[in-house]
């Protein structure tokens, strides 16, 4: 395995980490307008992700930075090409980031409602656009021989990518509801379980359909064989089915493991389907960016690999420790 391939895998892992971790943050955010009945419950929902959302978002920042360093051409083509979509993501993420710190800073109900909706809209919007954007890498977008995107904003949208966006939104909402059943108490916890049961079937069905569609698109548009992409796809479907089963049995701890695996495996399916390309060109397949033609030189990758090997395990340790520290169910009278 070359270092470029290793970094392709690592970037997939970073995206998977982002989907698993920020996935439930987004899910909690999307449920904010619907689940809680009073101010205390809204506080509980904010508190359930309060200590961790910022660390979770860094998985995205690092995925972006790693793409810049390891695959400059991929980073340049994707970010300049998906311009307006990324502008939307930025707006969604910004209003969401500030909502966490600012909502609790005034007692005015109007103020709190504004920031609650900013968080909900930001979570929904960012999940949707990431679903569309990442799946568009595989479906293909118009790229010229220089790797520059030649399409418009609307070239990102087609049946498959819109379906991907929808899947991500619903799956994250499900993932977030399951998360809330583990982190809250009382009525809110029961309502979260109800929501999880309501979302379970649609989320699992969408995830399964998306996994299958992804393999079909990979074969159809990215010159792939059914194997290996079908492998993570089957596992993703399995995880989704298990999540449904556990949620209906009320074993929410296991359900959360299953939804986490499901989120990670959907990313794995997408990236396995994408390999060895990183951005498929829909105008001329030969213009596609690949792991080898988009990557940095050996030395840069060596430096990055050394840093990642030294630092990532430590990051996992202290992020894991954070979850241990905040393992208690929230009561709604802390910081928020």
């Amino acid at each position, binding site marked *: 395995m070359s270092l470029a391939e290793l970094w392709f895998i690592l970037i997939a892992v970073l995206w998977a980490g982002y989907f698993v971790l920020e996935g439930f943050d987004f899910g909690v955010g999307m449920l904010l307008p619907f689940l809680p009945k009073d101010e205390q419950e809204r506080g509980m929902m904010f508190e359930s992700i309060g200590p961790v*959302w910022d660390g979770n978002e860094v998985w995205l*920042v*690092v995925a972006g*930075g790693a793409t810049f*360093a390891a695959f400059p051409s991929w980073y340049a083509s994707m970010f*300049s090409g998906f*311009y307006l979509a990324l502008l939307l993501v930025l707006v969604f*993420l910004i209003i969401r980031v500030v909502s966490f710190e600012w909502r609790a800073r005034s007692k005015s109900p109007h103020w709190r409602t504004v920031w609650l909706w900013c968080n909900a809209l930001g979570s929904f919007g960012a999940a949707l656009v990431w679903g569309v954007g990442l799946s568009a890498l595989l479906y293909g977008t118009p790229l010229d021989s220089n790797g520059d995107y030649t399409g418009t904003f609307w070239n990102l949208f087609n049946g498959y990518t819109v379906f991907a966006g929808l899947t991500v939104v619903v799956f994250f909402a499900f993932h977030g509801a399951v998360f809330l059943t583990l982190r809250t108490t009382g009525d809110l916890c029961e309502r979260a379980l109800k929501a999880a049961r309501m979302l379970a079937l649609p989320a699992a069905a969408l995830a399964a359909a998306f996994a299958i569609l992804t393999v079909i698109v990979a074969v159809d548009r990215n010159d792939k064989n059914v194997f290996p992409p079908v492998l993570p796809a089957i596992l993703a479907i399995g995880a989704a089915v298990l999540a449904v089963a556990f949620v209906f049995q009320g074993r929410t701890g296991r359900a959360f493991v299953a939804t986490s695996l499901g989120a990670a495996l959907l990313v794995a399916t997408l990236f396995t389907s994408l390999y060895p390309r990183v951005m498929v060109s829909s105008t001329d397949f030969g213009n596609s960016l690949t792991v080898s033609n988009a990557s940095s030189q050996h030395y840069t990758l060596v430096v990055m690999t050394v840093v990642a090997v030294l630092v990532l395990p430590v990051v996992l340790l202290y992020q894991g420790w954070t979850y241990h520290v*905040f393992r*208690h169910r929230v009561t709604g009278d802390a910081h928020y």
Partner: protein
Amino acid sequence: MHLILASTRVDLARGQFATTSLYHFLFVPLTLGLGPIVAIFQTMWHRTGNETWLRLTRFFGTLFLINFAIGVATGLVQEFQFGMNWSVYSRFVGNVFGAPLAIEGLAAFFLESTFLGLWIFGWNRLSPRLHLATLWIAVAGTWMSAYFILAANSFMQDPVGYKIENGQAVLTSVWDLLSSDWTLYAFAHTILAGLTAGSAVVFGVCCWHFVRQRNVEVFRPAAKVALIVLVPASCVNLWFGSHFGILVEKLQPMKIAASEAQWSTCSHCAFSVFQIGGFTESDQTPTYSLDIPGLLSYLATGSFSGTVQGLNNLNQQYSRQHGPGNYKPPVRAIYWSMRVMAGVGTVIALIAIVSAFLLWRRRIERLRWFLWIAVANSFLPFLATSAGWVLTEVGRQPWIVQGLLKTSNANSPNVTTTWLGISLGVFIVLYLALLVVDVWLMRRYAGLDPVAPDEQAPAPQPAPSF
């Protein structure tokens, strides 16, 4: 027509970068400087058990967090816009520039965001000692992040540790990049500016309470700590900044020449405190200028008789090296940004010294007019840092990477004027809205009484959820 459109697109992309960077850097220095001061307050509480320090920790910790949020949010835009607006640049430098950026994420952002979360919510969950440690670790994360991003930026000013291969800059020594003189100077300069900003804000808030005769007993120790940071940070940064000038003269002589509107090469050069006219090609001699003999030579070379290269000679020299063209940055803007930065920096240092004297003589709390000056002083560092970045980034023009790639060739060729216009408009509206809210929140929370920490009673701990 095509050329006009191309230059419009570059200008819009530059406008967007300038807007985001300057905006982002209103919140960054505050984070860099306020973080350690809050950590000092909490350390004092931990050491002495005196409740005043705990109140101060909570009080200024809130101000810290209000701003940290926008810093994080606009930092995302910073990371994305290299690829969005500057794809040619990103492909050209990705091998080199991307590495410190990725390391920043891995080594610094994870640290600061995770441990800040632990600090915010960990009051009743962690032992006091561990809880204090989480804040110091988060602060270390913010400083490390400043270091890595400045290492990346320094490649644009003083490219080192690379070779050109197939039209791309390729990294050859990460160590050269991370330990270049420019990186180390820029880091120290930025950290000192951050400490200046953070302590000036803390001191200003204290003085605002003194003016209103409120919470004087609580804020007196905070004012003392703020000045212990502010006096050395602002004074050392003046000295340090002038030394930085000598490095800039070596590596980017054009920037120094432009910052002094020095058209012809000179020795024993005078420094003009201000001048009227003399900023354009056709008008190279100022109609009036207030000069200090020999000072420019001293600032740029370390010797009163040193030679400072002029804009005209440098342009000839660059034209020989890189082909005929105009290699001069906009002189007027650079000249004045340099004076705003250095002038405001000097004013801050003077106010700091006088404040320390008055505090020592126990007179400051009664001098209302001076207290108002100290309140106003808390805004000045942001003026100085903004001017400093204009000097650094505009002064590098026409280059995006000094001597290697021109800004006019580095933007994304496929990003249309419409896209650029939309995004610039969206960002300006969003930034203004956030700024209004931030200022309103800061004013409100800076004016509150520091809460008595009776909420310190440990919260009931429900059963673990997993």
